[in-house]
C-alpha cells in the first residue's frame, strides 16, 4: 500500500517535472551571445508573452508587430524589458522596450523589417528576474535588406 501510494505520487509528479524541464529555453539557445547578454544565463520559460505577427508578409520592409506580456504591471510585479529578435536579420536584435509600473499594460506595437522567412522571438524580463518567451514563424515573400543589385 505504501509502495503503491509512493508510486502514484511519483507518477503524478513526473510528467509535470519532465515537461517543465523540457520547456525551459524552448525558444532560445542558451549559448546565443545575444540571449546570454540579456539573461546572464537565467533560463527562459515559454509563456506569458504573446508575439503577434501576420502569418504571411508580402514584403519584409514593414511588418506590423505587437508584443504583449501577461502582467499586472504593479510596483512589485511588472515587465522590465522586452527584446524582439529576428533570427535571420543581419542585426538580430530588432528592438528593446523598457517598461515600468507606469505603463499600466505591457503591450507594445511597431512595424519591423524582416530579412526573409524566419522565426521571430520575443523575450521578456519581469521585475522578479524571470524570463519568458514566445516565438512566431513568419513567411516573408520579399525580404528587406536587399537593394535589388
Amino acid at each position, binding site marked *: 500500500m505504501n509502495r503503491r501510494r509512493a508510486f502514484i505520487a511519483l507518477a503524478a509528479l513526473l510528467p509535470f517535472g519532465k515537461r517543465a524541464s523540457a520547456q525551459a529555453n524552448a525558444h532560445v539557445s542558451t549559448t546565443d551571445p545575444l540571449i546570454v547578454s540579456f539573461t546572464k544565463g537565467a533560463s527562459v520559460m515559454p509563456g506569458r508573452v504573446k508575439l503577434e505577427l501576420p502569418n504571411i508578409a508580402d514584403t519584409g*520592409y*514593414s*511588418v506590423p508587430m*505587437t508584443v504583449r506580456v501577461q502582467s499586472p504591471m504593479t510596483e512589485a510585479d511588472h515587465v522590465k524589458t522586452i527584446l*524582439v529578435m*529576428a533570427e535571420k*536579420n*543581419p*542585426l*538580430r*536584435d*530588432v*528592438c*528593446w*522596450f*523598457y*517598461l*515600468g509600473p*507606469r*505603463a*499600466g*499594460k505591457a*503591450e*507594445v*506595437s*511597431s*512595424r*519591423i*523589417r524582416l530579412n526573409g522567412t524566419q522565426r521571430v522571438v520575443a523575450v521578456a524580463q519581469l521585475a522578479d528576474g524571470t524570463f519568458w518567451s514566445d516565438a512566431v514563424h513568419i513567411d516573408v515573400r520579399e525580404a*528587406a*535588406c536587399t*537593394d535589388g*543589385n
Partner: protein
Amino acid sequence: MAQARILLPERVRRGELVEVRIVIQHPMETGFRHDAFGSRIPRNAIHSLACRYNGVEVFRATLGTGIAPNPYLRFFTRAVESGELEFWWLDDDEVEGTARATISVL
C-alpha cells in the same frame, strides 16, 4: 530635422489606460544598401527613444535598423494627471528629435 506625429485619446479619466501612438519621419537607413553608383549608403537609424510624462520616464526603447522606415510605436501608460507627454530620440548622425503632446485627464 525629423518630424513626428503623436496620437492620443482626446480625453481620459484618471487611472485609465492611455494608448500612445507616435510616428516619426525618419529614413531608418540600414547601412546595407547601395546608391546608383555602387557606394554604400551610411547607416542612419534612430537608436534611442524615450517618453516622459510630466518629467517622469514612462517608456524607453532601443531601436535599430530592424525597425521599418518612419518608425511607428504604440504603447500604454496610465493617466495620472493632465500635462505633457514629451518624446526624445537620437539617431546615428547624433541628430536629436523631440515632440510633445498635451494630455488632458478628467
